[in-house]
């Protein structure tokens, strides 16, 4: 058994004031100056703790309020109210919702998973990942207690091509040379960012984070700078220029390299393997309706790893795009059908926004995932996308200290790792490799709705 994977977290404060869902509105006019003001009775001592954040000259009140409404309901002249914070509503968009963004902030700051009282307060279901539920083991199947550490659940996955059978010669000596495989302790890699302010510090934070977590960050060849050399064992170098431009010394120290899908991609893979046989090559490919057949063909031609990339909303490139989980399901099942699924590693990414998406996409057939925007959000990004228009970043991401950024990223990933353990534990699954493609242990909205609700309201 491998040594237990543990992520060290430490509380890492925000640089900017949190945008909270609601704010306290208190009027002074009409105040009776009660001897004992309800503000003094606050259970959470919010009014006593209040202060001014000197950096932004903002009141700290709203970020500590716990929405108990005691002061609202207690003030004799009804001078205190709570109102929706308009800046909260404006965070992100329909996919990267304010709830998702603030949940990521919490995890990045606290290094803890979100726990709350009361039942679930969200929608019954929704599009994309919200249209499935994961299974649990009732009564007769033992579950695993991974989170409190009493039982070990492995989240390790292998990146590389696998041999299906070993071959021996007549003397019994092994003839097969197993291809190189890279192990990562949790099924997540850090991907290229779809947008960001100037990212020298951001890249370094991602690399520092990746190194401390034992995983990888994809870095463009064109953005590689000498300061990154110490991170080479945790870099997936994305070849956005020419193969021949890669310094042989750098290449030798890499474990993973990524090349874009296109004509001659297998030939390029061959060239790289000749130069560094221990290297695992990832083929980066946009997700589209032809992905199933393309992946099958590449698998037959000897590809090792395919990285399927959807857009930042998890959609493939098509006039009528499928969501990443649907397309990955189809690709996975197509490969299973052809009997070659286990030869190849599938990494999928785009629109991965929450810990639950990791488990759900693996259930739908991915071996590992790539994440992008959540890493920026860990560093307080508000998903306003103004950087894409060249407008300055409201949280000055270009100025971050990479050690601070790495700590935030590590906290977030620790939260995701623990949440993955919760899901695996409930299902009674001991390792994440066995979760891959376990669609029978998931419940899909489209099946259940049809089975249960479409039949209602019919006589006889």
């Amino acid at each position, binding site marked *: 058994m491998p040594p237990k994977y543990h992520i060290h977290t430490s509380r890492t404060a925000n640089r900017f004031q949190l945008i909270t869902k609601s704010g306290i509105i208190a009027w002074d006019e009409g105040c009776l100056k009660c001897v004992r003001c309800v503000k003094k009775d606050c*259970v*959470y001592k919010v009014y006593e703790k209040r202060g001014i954040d000197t950096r932004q000259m903002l009141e700290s009140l709203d970020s500590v309020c*716990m*929405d*108990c*409404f*005691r002061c*609202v*309901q*207690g*003030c004799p002249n*009804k001078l205190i*109210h*709570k*109102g*929706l914070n308009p800046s909260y509503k404006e965070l992100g968009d329909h996919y990267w919702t304010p709830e998702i963004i603030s949940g990521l902030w919490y995890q990045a700051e606290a290094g803890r*998973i*979100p*726990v*709350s*009282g*009361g*039942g*679930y*307060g*969200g*929608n*019954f*279901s929704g599009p994309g990942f919200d249209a499935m*539920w*994961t*299974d*649990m*083991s*009732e*009564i*007769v199947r*033992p*579950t695993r*207690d991974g*989170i*409190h550490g009493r039982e070990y659940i492995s989240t390790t996955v292998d990146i590389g091509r696998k041999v299906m059978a070993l071959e021996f010669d007549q003397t019994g000596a092994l003839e097969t040379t197993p291809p190189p495989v890279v192990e990562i302790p949790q099924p997540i890699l850090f991907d290229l960012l779809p947008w960001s302010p100037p990212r020298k510090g951001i890249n370094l934070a991602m690399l520092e984070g990746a190194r401390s977590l034992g995983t990888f960050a994809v870095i463009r060849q064109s953005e590689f700078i000498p300061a990154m050399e110490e991170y080479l064992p945790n870099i997936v170098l994305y070849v956005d220029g020419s193969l021949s431009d890669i310094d042989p010394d750098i290449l030798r120290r890499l474990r993973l390299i990524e090349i874009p899908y296109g004509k001659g991609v297998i030939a390029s893979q061959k060239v790289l393997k000749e130069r560094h046989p221990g290297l695992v090559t990832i083929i980066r490919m946009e997700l589209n309706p032809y992905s199933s057949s393309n992946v099958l063909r590449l698998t037959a031609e000897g590809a090792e790893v395919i990285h399927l990339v959807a857009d930042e909303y998890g959609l493939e490139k098509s006039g009528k795009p499928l969501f990443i989980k649907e397309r990955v399901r189809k690709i996975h099942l197509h490969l299973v059908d052809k009997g070659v699924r286990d030869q190849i590693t599938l990494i999928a990414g785009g629109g991965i926004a929450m*810990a*639950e998406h990791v488990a*759900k996409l693996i259930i739908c057939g991915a071996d590992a995932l790539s994440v992008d925007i959540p890493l920026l959000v860990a560093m307080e990004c508000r998903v306003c996308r103004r950087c894409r228009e060249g407008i300055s970043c409201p949280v000055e991401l270009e100025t971050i200290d990479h050690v601070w950024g790495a700590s935030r990223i590590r906290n977030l990933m620790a939260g995701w790792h623990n*949440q993955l353990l*919760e*899901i695996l*534990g*409930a299902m009674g699954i001991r390792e994440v490799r066995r979760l891959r493609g376990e669609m*029978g*242990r998931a*419940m899909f909205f489209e099946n259940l*709705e049809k089975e*249960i*609700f479409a039949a*209602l*309201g*019919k006589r*006889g």
Partner: protein
Amino acid sequence: MAIKTKTLKLPEIRPVPSRFRNALGKYRVTITKSCNNCGLCITLCPYSVYKAGSKKPRVAAEHLCLGFPCKEKDFFCVNKCPEKAIQLTINPSFEILGDRRWSADLLASAWHMAETGELPYQGLNYKTGNSGGGFDKLRFIFPKAKGLDVPDEEISTTIELNRSGDSRPSVTIPVPFYFGGMSFGSVSIVTMLSRVKAAAALKTFCCTGEGGYPEELIPYDDHIITQIATGLFGVREETIKRVRIVEFKYAQGAKPGLGGHLLGDKVTSRVASMREAVAGSALFSPFPFHSVYSVEDHKKHVDWIKETNYRALVSVKVSTPSDVDMVAVGSYYAGAHIVQLDGSYGGTGAAPDIAKKNIAMPIEYAVPKVHKFLSEEGIRDKVTIIASGGIRSAYDMAKAIALGADGVCLGTADLVALECIRCHHCESGRGCARGIATTDEELTSLMELDWATQRIINMYLTWQRQLISILKRLGMRSVTELVGRFDVIGHLDYIKQKDLEGDLDL
């Protein structure tokens, strides 16, 4: 099994206003300085929104204001005020109250019913929330015909909990619901006792949860379900012998497949002694029962209780995995009288958000699945199916029954009656700031037992009346006729107008 129609001797409804100075409602009423204190508004308003004051009338109960629809009435104070001193607006705080499942409307409706024992009239949607699916998209299809024209007393809402035909006593409850487990420790003793007393008044049951059987509950033994969960906290032979129903909690819908966790802050010395643990240290209930790894082990569990208490019925509480139907059959064959299905959107004192949202299926799917499967097995009428996990209103309750449950188990709704506002912070620091889910002495003292008991009684009597009115509209004389009637409900996304034989209750 035929059930004798029984008339429920109802406890009385007594008005119990909010324990906070300003009750929260949909509207905000303010009187400006130009008021000359003529007192006309006080006389006009039939909802007692105003009380007399020395300089101007006091807006004492704006949550009872009819709101904008009042414009049509001849007692509309805003227009009648000679000084035009009254302003009516939407309460700005209302916008951020509640969540998708428990909308501000549902919360305010529950508070209204708990206060007055009447249906709300302020234009609040008291039937559905805003979750966009499940119960919130299911509607009754009422026949065109007028429905039964009989007094409420002639409609039975009684259900039998022992349908097994074994030699154990029949246990009937005059309302098709009981109250689910909330342990001492997760809620205050006042909350716990008020739920138990309300259950006794309504002649139904309340479950102890996993945290022991405080001696204050002993006078209500006949209305208590004692729970045995994986931590076995507070389980003793004498507590099992004391009650009419014993419940095995295998799993909880809010965190299926995960154990329970009581944070150290909530483990006071009283909680600790009840649970035979150490004050201040967090307590874990493991998952699963480490004595059960097969259906045979499960049967051994049930037999153990049946041997210990010869008159007890056994209930098995499970959550809703993909094979929930098999779990229900297994539980029945192991000898359970009641199978409680706890759907994934159910309540909890604390659970990881990822578990609440994603693990196991909502109760709206699980109940019909189990009902159909047990019917096909030919054992549906031998076992009582209780649905729980996200039943927020009388309409949810009736829909769950139409989907195939015999009755429902409630939890969060009781707490809302006690003025829970769903802030989701039950678990933090000293616990619930509103004194419901806490063991902090000062916070516990925010609520009085009689107040709390009556609030719960008021709300559920209102639910019972709503259920009776639904049954009448459907032409049914007993709630048992509603069980599994897939034909009387439709889902807004799938029902076609041309197939409708009746009116959708929108």
